[in-house]
């Protein structure tokens, strides 16, 4: 007997294609997609054309949305993309918002904050569509989302497993952590030693260089990018790209009030943080003042 694969439709709204490209970098892309029938995809071959999509005749079990959403004024093939998306959102059993734009509004929201949002969330607020689609919604924010976050969700769906999610519909397995978890600079965070220059392995980026890792949900330092590294590991601050309020300004500078970081690590009261900071800063640990590794000169 022939087994019917779930039919997967990837639709784009206002987007830079970043999530499409991110997913194409998955080392096991085709073995993952082999669990599905791709009915249409912006970059991969599908069994239906975009004209078929516009006509509303394409079957769809899993709908992946990429890009920010506006109800009116963004057309493809002469058709409002919003109506296309709603057509297939009604058909689908699962809706995955791929990336921060599709989830919360993201960068493209800056163009027209009043009218551009995510599909089911506008920043952290639920949109009018939320109630209709909440039962089938999975959020994968990130700019872009990590390809393995997508493959986790797809394989869970393919294997008919329930995905545990939080209040913004993010899988807890992926977003239960902060980006800080697993950062190779954690010892420097513990002892409150900031990095002295970009590119150095020594030092934490939280105190002066804008790192948002301690209060950003995501598993970038657990599930590494390209199976190799992460922003913070190579010396770039986390920009908080998975958060509803992304993007923010001054991404390379920590906002401080008299030297005290304005934003605290997730869930940490300021009084507790400052008490701990004062104590740790009172000690000078020689190892943390030295290079991690010395090379022959």
């Amino acid at each position, binding site marked *: 007997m022939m087994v019917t694969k779930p039919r997967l439709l990837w639709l784009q709204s206002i987007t830079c294609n970043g999530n499409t490209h991110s997913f194409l970098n998955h080392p096991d892309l085709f073995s993952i997609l082999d669990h599905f029938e791709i009915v249409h995809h912006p970059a991969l071959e599908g069994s239906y054309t975009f004209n078929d999509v516009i006509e509303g005749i394409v079957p769809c079990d899993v709908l992946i949305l990429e890009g920010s959403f506006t109800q009116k004024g963004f057309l493809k093939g002469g058709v409002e993309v919003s109506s296309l998306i709603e057509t297939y959102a009604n058909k689908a059993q699962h809706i995955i918002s791929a990336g921060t734009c599709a989830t919360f509004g993201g960068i493209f929201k800056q163009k027209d904050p009043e009218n551009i949002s995510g599909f089911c969330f506008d920043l952290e607020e639920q949109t009018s569509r939320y109630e209709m689609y909440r039962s089938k919604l999975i959020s994968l924010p990130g700019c872009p989302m990590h390809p393995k976050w997508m493959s986790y969700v797809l394989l869970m769906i393919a294997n008919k497993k329930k995905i545990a999610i939080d209040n913004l519909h993010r899988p807890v397995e992926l977003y239960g952590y902060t980006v800080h978890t697993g950062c190779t600079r954690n010892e420097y965070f513990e002892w409150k030693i900031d990095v002295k220059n970009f590119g150095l392995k020594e030092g934490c980026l939280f105190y002066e260089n804008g790192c948002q890792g301690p209060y950003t949900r995501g598993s970038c330092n657990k599930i590494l990018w390209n199976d190799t590294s992460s922003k913070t590991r190579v010396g770039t601050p986390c920009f908080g790209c998975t958060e509803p309020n992304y993007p923010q300004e001054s991404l390379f500078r920590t906002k401080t009030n*008299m030297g005290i970081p304005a934003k605290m690590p997730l869930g940490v009261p*300021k009084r507790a943080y400052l008490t701990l900071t*004062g104590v740790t800063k*009172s000690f000078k640990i020689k190892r943390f003042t030295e290079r991690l590794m010395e090379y022959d000169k």
Partner: protein
Amino acid sequence: MKIAEKKALKRESIIQTALQLFSRNGFHKTTIPDIAAKLQMSVGNLYNYFSSKDILAQEIIKYTSEALGKKIRVVNMTDVSAQEKIYQIVSVYFTMAKEKPEMIEYFLRVYLSNREVFSDGCEGIVCVSGFITEIMIFFDESVSSGELRNQDFFSAFGLFMGYLGGMVFLKGEEVLPHDIEYYIDDISRNIYNALKA
């Protein structure tokens, strides 16, 4: 009363007595037998509570820092302007200097003057964090609300606390022509004018 509660009370009475003796007579001129005698307890029993004079001295600075920190925390929790909070913090500090002079004297004449006693166990601000944390909270909230100018923490902290400590020191030297409380208004205004945005 449970044994643990009795012990806690005894411990606090040792701290308070030692605090007075250290502040009045100096750290080195005060001995453990002096403190025990004042408390009418045996030297051996006192050592059950504090294993050395240095450790007792360290516990006292934590105790005074926590006591002052608690009062400033009350100020921080009130919904008033940064200017008013400065006035209240100055009042708290000077009132304590008047009513419990040993608390501030201990900081100035024992803690700051005998650093070797505190070098192992009270590094940096470890033993005074109860107080400094509240000053940090005050600065953070006042800059965040736009009332105070954003700057390095220590440049603001030194101006604020160095000023107050200096005045209490002068009071201790009995060179101030007026009661310490006489200066609350002017000093609060000076600090606010120096730190305001």
